[in-house]
């Protein structure tokens, strides 16, 4: 029957004219409508607030949280309206049949609006997350500038706290979208032999919500900043100025985006695998995305609920976190860290996936212990829901719980250790090529080991008494997240960007970037373990004068690390914008599916859905089959389509 066929890729007619594109739904309208939405909803919120909380929220204070929160939600609605996200739901409400296709044409405009091509969304994600990564990195530079003096004077103390909060929140939120967004959306469909993600519109929505989340977070600087850091501890969050509303809404947007992107990836992997793509042949990167998605789908809703409670405390003056009125600050601690610990594995697992995916290519060996790697990732994902109270060892919760959480926390090092064994097995008698991606992967093991071993100190309650909440923790999670995830992400960018963009990336600049980043990363963060043990709490702008020399040294190293990131940026600009050297289809001689298709990848990915005949790690067996595209083979197009 004719109507049974869903058009996946309509034949592309001529793209609308420039004026047509400009007047259609795009990010320009989104920005305009977001501002209008804020103003309208703020006005409305002011009216509502005056009715239900007249005496609590007198006009004139900037504590008119009902108006500000509603304004921020209004801007979300305006933003989505301008991008055209309400068109399809309205059509569905009118009973129109579902479709999978919107905004795909060959014009540059598709990068500035709702587009259902997963490769376009991935590139949007890459630019957005890297942009916010650099913004957050810049804030880190300012933090280190302040810390060159032991007694806070450079920036006003409140601004310093906002700086710390912006850096932390933006890094955490943008980096949790930083792999699953660009690389996940780009690679997962292609790696499993699909033409699309399961829900292309939701895919685009998550990307645009992530962008909005970044700007909403930055709007905190206009609303008085927020003093809570990325952990948003209540009741300080209840008490803070309106800048915290930006934090809450921004984090809520990221939470929603995480849930949706997780569902999308999981559904895609479950239902859209090509014939022959059995679970045993799934690339390890896809497994990493699957486990990350499980965490995102289950953990982020708890965060959303907790954020709702803070909003409720701030606007209608409920008392979830106010102990004098039947609430408790510990409720926030529990809910936040129930999300927060899976969240750190949302940040770690993609790194495992990238590293284990790249390692076989440059070791010229199959991934060693594939099943164990998958088991390890699932082990980490499962265990991460059972360890959160190690963040609360000193908080005065029931002391009898501690041995259990100490045990589970240490237990989680077993599945993590498996990843190391995978790496080592793969490197055994390998034929290593020291390309830039490979260097980043090797550095991942170096850094993540230090991060992991320092985690053992934090998991032991006795040792944690010293290190809890100090710069030791700060160094620990920078070793795992920056030394782990960001190094892996850099490796992934150098590895896949030629495929994604069609242009080669300069290897010499890449090596310079790698060596400076590796050296200055370690010189920046290793001394901070000592700073923590010697009594420097996190998020302070003033510290004991005896730690001054150490901090000045760290600051200088951090500035060098910042310069290294500028080399990276320069390399991207040079290679992708200025030089523009065409990349070949398979420059790394990989056996993985994404390298077997043409560069640049056509919008439909595969002329015909391929048949997978082996896993992508058949190195050492030159004839090991990986995929049958069928285009030159015997399968006729008509038969496949029937």
């Amino acid at each position, binding site marked *: *029957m004719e*109507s*049974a066929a*869903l*058009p*996946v*890729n309509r*034949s*592309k007619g001529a793209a609308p004219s420039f004026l047509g594109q400009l007047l259609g739904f795009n990010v320009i309208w989104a920005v305009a409508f977001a501002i209008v939405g804020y103003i309208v909803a703020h006005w409305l919120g002011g009216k509502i607030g005056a009715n239900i909380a007249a005496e609590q929220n007198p006009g004139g204070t900037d504590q008119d949280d009902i108006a500000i929160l509603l304004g921020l939600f209004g801007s979300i609605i305006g933003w989505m309206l301008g991008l055209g996200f309400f068109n399809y*739901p309205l059509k*569905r*409400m*009118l*009973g*129109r*049949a*579902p479709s999978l296709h919107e905004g795909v044409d*060959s014009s540059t405009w598709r990068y500035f609006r709702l587009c259902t091509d997963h490769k376009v969304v991935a590139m949007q994600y890459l630019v957005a997350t890297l942009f916010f990564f650099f913004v957050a990195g810049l804030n880190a530079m300012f933090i280190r500038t302040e810390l060159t003096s032991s007694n806070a004077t450079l920036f006003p103390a409140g601004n310093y706290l906002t700086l710390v909060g912006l850096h932390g929140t933006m890094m955490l939120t943008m980096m949790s979208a930083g792999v699953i967004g660009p690389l996940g959306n780009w690679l997962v469909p292609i790696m499993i032999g699909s033409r699309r993600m*399961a*829900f292309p519109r939701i895919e685009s929505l998550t990307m645009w919500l992530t962008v909005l989340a970044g700007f909403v977070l930055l709007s905190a600087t206009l609303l008085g900043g927020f003093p809570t850091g990325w952990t948003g501890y209540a009741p300080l969050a209840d008490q803070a100025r309106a800048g915290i509303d930006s934090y809450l809404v921004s984090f809520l947007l990221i939470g929603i985006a995480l*849930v949706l992107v*997780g*569902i*999308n990836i*999981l*559904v895609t992997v479950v*239902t859209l695998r090509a014939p022959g793509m059995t679970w045993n042949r799934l690339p390890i990167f896809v497994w990493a995305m699957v486990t990350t998605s499980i965490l995102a*789908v*289950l*953990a*982020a*809703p*708890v965060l*959303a*609920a*907790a954020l*709702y*409670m803070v909003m*409720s*405390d701030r606007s*209608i*003056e*409920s*008392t*979830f976190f106010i102990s*004098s*009125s*039947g*609430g*408790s600050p*510990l*409720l926030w601690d*529990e*809910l936040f860290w129930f999300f927060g610990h899976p969240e750190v594995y949302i940040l770690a697992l993609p790194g495992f996936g990238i590293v284990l995916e790249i390692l076989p290519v440059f070791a010229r060996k199959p991934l060693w212990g594939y099943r164990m790697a998958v088991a390890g990732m699932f082990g980490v994902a499962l265990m991460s829901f059972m360890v959160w109270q190690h963040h609360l060892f000193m908080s005065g919760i029931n002391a009898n719980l501690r041995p259990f959480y100490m045990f589970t926390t240490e237990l989680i090092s077993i599945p993590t250790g498996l990843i190391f064994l995978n790496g080592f097995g793969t490197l055994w008698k390998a034929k290593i090529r020291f390309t830039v991606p490979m260097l980043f992967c090797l550095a991942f093991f170096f850094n993540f080991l230090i991060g992991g071993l320092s985690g053992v100190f934090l998991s032991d309650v006795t040792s944690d008494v010293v290190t809890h909440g100090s710069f030791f923790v700060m160094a620990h999670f920078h070793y795992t997240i920056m030394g782990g995830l960001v190094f892996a992400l850099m490796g992934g960018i150098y590895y896949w960007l030629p495929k994604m963009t069609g242009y080669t990336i300069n290897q010499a600049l890449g090596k310079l970037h790698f060596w400076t980043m590796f050296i200055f990363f370690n010189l920046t963060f290793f001394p901070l373990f000592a700073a923590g043990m010697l009594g420097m709490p996190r998020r302070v702008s003033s510290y004991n004068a005896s730690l001054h020399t150490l901090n000045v040294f760290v600051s200088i190293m951090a500035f060098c690390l910042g310069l290294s990131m500028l080399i990276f940026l320069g390399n991207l600009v040079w290679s992708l914008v200025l030089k523009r050297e065409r990349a070949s289809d398979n420059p790394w001689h990989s056996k993985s599916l994404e390298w077997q298709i043409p560069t*640049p990848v*056509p919008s*439909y990915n595969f*002329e015909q859905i391929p048949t997978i005949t082996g896993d992508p790690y058949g190195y050492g067996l030159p004839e090991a089959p990986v995929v049958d595209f069928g285009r030159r083979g015997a399968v006729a*197009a008509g038969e496949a*389509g029937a």
Partner: protein
Amino acid sequence: MSAHDGVVIEPEGPETLGANISVGARLWASAVAFFFMAFVFAFFYLRALNTAHSFREPHVTPPIGWGVAILACVLGSSVIFTLGRTRLGDGTDSQWRLASLASLVLALAVVALQIIEYYNLSFGASDGGLASVFLGFTATFGLFWLGAVYWIETIWAQSLRGERAGESDIANTSGLLRPSADGCVVYLYTLGIVEIFAFVLLYLVK
């Protein structure tokens, strides 16, 4: 990319999209369940701590009449929709459309009743832990319930449009009515269980 134009792309069968919706609905339901788990946790946690002996102020008594009415409408809407879904397979399209409409009306009644209940509360959000949990739980439930209202409405609207076009719902595979309705059933039952939890905790537990 125009170089690739003219390539014949084989179309995708509707069963893939059906599978997408089916798996996606279950995952979404699990996310929703974890969301409300936070409120259930908040209830028990604050009740156990009972800081300043202010978890349950004496005058914080949620009106059980409205609670029963809301619970009945939620469960009624879910059950009627499910019954209608079985008719969708039988080929009795008119009964299915009637059932989905009835379900939609009951679903809207939930929202209306919730709003009326808020106007009849004897307490405000600042009146202790239970009052906070009550307002947070019911309000967020209402938000998610609006999602269910939207979902029922799209299925019903699509079915109506199909009728006008002379298309039977069973044959309406391109519209994916059946997988969509299946997904909606999963979501409705998840919310139904959440509402039972809400009712027991907020109205019954002393």
